[in-house]
């Protein structure tokens, strides 16, 4: 469906989201938690980009920063050609209908004191000039669209199952006909039996309404099912970004390889021969990431250069990018120089911190 010549709907360049660490009476800043550190990607119209990584790697922060739920430290975010990265929240409000979010925990993301109809019509109250009857009509349409019985409109969230609640959350996100939806682990809190329903619903809606998704998840098989392209994050940075099939068939970054080796195979024969790459140690603190490559403390293929120089994201096949020195080594002198520039940048950051 995604036309390769289509213009990107979402373009993120050099996004940084640092949370300051303060200490003392005067709250002097003593450092940063680099939750998202220089992340760039773009999402084409109608495409689904998967964002995977282990807990705490900054995927959710990245998704929230893209929607400006946080004020990013640096970087540019363009949605449909409009730069929203530096816009004030007030100026952003009229643009909010274009971009919406589906949250992880449907229990927590719905106000327990509001009825389903009130929850779904909340965005309409804020952004649409509609009469009461029109709003109710729209709420019914949305409930039909996500497969909820219209008779449930006056019930409260606690009267629903997890899957139904997530449908309410999706209906709310759809209310204003957005173009772009960030799905922040929309299935992580659901039963396995329900996950497929919700994912299929998201796919159907994408087909019908031409939606663009940023699909954040740690479930690699679900990401494989729904996404067109996949970005792998580690400690606030993108390790690898590639079209889905290329990534799953031929992972280039050692971290991606380790991550994929953890996915169980459905076939018992290949499952028994599956070689798991077990990573040693813990994820370093994002407040104090290692010098050089973020992954150098746990990488099974670590080289001396990895501990010194931060690798750049390089295109190793068409559309397939990886940030790893294994690939910079085989590149031409130009690539090596780019790596060097990265090192200088890193030193400057070190001085600032």
């Amino acid at each position: 469906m995604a036309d390769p010549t289509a213009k990107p709907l979402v373009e993120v360049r050099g996004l940084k989201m640092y949370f300051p660490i303060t200490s003392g009476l005067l709250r002097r800043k003593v450092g940063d938690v680099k939750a998202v550190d220089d992340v760039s990607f773009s999402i084409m119209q109608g495409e689904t980009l998967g964002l995977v990584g282990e807990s705490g790697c900054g995927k959710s922060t990245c998704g929230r920063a893209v929607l400006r739920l946080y004020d990013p430290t640096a970087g540019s975010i363009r949605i449909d050609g409009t730069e929203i990265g530096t816009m004030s929240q007030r100026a952003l409000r009229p643009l909010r209908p274009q971009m919406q979010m589906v949250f992880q925990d449907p229990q927590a993301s719905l106000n327990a004191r509001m009825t389903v109809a009130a929850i779904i019509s909340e965005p309409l109250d804020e952004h649409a000039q509609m009469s009461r009857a029109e709003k109710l009509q729209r709420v019914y349409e949305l409930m039909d669209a996500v497969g909820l019985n219209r008779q449930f409109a006056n019930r409260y969230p606690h009267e629903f199952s997890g899957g139904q609640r997530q449908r309410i959350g999706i209906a709310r996100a759809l209310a204003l006909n957005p173009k772009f939806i960030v799905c922040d682990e929309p299935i992580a809190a659901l039963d396995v039996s329900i996950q497929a329903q919700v994912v299929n619903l998201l796919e159907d809606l994408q087909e019908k309404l031409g939606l663009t998704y940023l699909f954040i998840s740690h479930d690699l098989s679900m990401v494989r099912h729904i996404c067109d392209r996949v970005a792998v994050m580690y400690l606030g940075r993108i390790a690898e970004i590639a079209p889905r099939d290329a990534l799953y068939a031929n992972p280039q970054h050692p971290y991606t390889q380790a991550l994929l080796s953890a996915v169980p195979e459905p076939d018992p024969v290949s499952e028994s021969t599956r070689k798991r790459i077990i990573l040693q140690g813990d994820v370093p603190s994002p407040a104090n990431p290692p010098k050089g490559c973020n992954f150098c403390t746990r990488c099974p293929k670590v080289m001396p250069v990895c501990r010194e120089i931060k690798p750049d994201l390089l295109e190793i096949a068409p559309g397939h990018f990886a940030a790893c020195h294994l690939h910079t080594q085989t590149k031409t002198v130009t690539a090596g120089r780019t790596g060097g520039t990265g090192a200088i940048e890193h030193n400057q950051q070190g001085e600032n911190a």
Partner: protein
Amino acid sequence: MALSPLNQRRWRNFRANRRAYWSLLLFSLIFGLSLFAELIANDKPLLVSFRGELKYPLTRFYSERDFGGDFQTAVSWRDAEVQCLIRTGGAELCLDDPTAALAEAEASGTVEGVKIEPGWMIWPLIPFSYNTISDLGEPAPSAPDNRHWLGTDNTARDVLARVIYGFRLSVAFALIVTLTTSVIGIAAGAVQGYFGGAIDLIFQRVIELWGSVPSLYIIIIVAAIWPMNFWLLVILMTVFGWTALVGVVRAEFLRARNFEYVRAARALGVPDRVIMFRHVLPNAMVATLTMLPFVITGTIAGLASLDFLGFGLPSSAPSLGELTLQAKQNLQAPWLAFTAFFTFAIMLSLLVFIFEGVRDAFDPRKTFR
């Protein structure tokens, strides 16, 4: 108005607490009656029939001339002359010898041989207002008798009338002050908790400074500059009382601002003030309600102690604190002390019982019975 299921459950829980429920009924009855204190205890008759015409002294102004008297001043309804004029339809003799005129009217329906048009007056149950100075014929304070059911205080004013008006004043004062302090306190706490950061830090320090201001001295100083009245006292109590709720509300907002559904509302582009009202405030209400009884009883006690010390309302105002002071000064008149004690005890107990029930009804752990 349809209650949400949650509120219906709370109401059921409240009713299940019999002590709280009956306290609420009783308190509503007493306070409801005291709202009509003018109809219960007043030194004006409720209704007068004079020469076949109905007069309404509670709502209209009448001079003595309207009843055949000499003066253009307001009618003093309790005077024997005025009573005689009304009963006899304005006979001249009343101005000179009301007793004789009344006796003749009773006996024969005439005064000085002239046929009269008989009139009548309906008095309230207690024919004294809170500031009516009664003609006792003995030194005040006088003991309870069938004219003054709870006796009189040291300026010969009816204690029962003062208690009725004083109860109304105390409760009204407490409710108004509680309302204003809660509105300000909730707003301040909400802003601090919701936005956090520097606003929170600075505001908290301001509150610490404010809290250390000795409010009693300020009230004494202000009372020395302006004559004290009800609304000035409301303002002063609000100015020093609004910090009571800030802490709890701030804590609730600090907790709730990172709830997923608050974040969801923000992603929908809902403005902050709407999020605060629609999504966060209902969560903060439970904690606020737990604090409210302390604020209300504290305000009643505060008003009473100011009156007791003489820095509260002017001494003509019906005040329970002043009654307590008189009880202390007139130990030979124990009815003053008993009245003051029982009024406070009953009023505060009822309020505490009610709010205890409200708090339990809002307690989420008890809600799911």
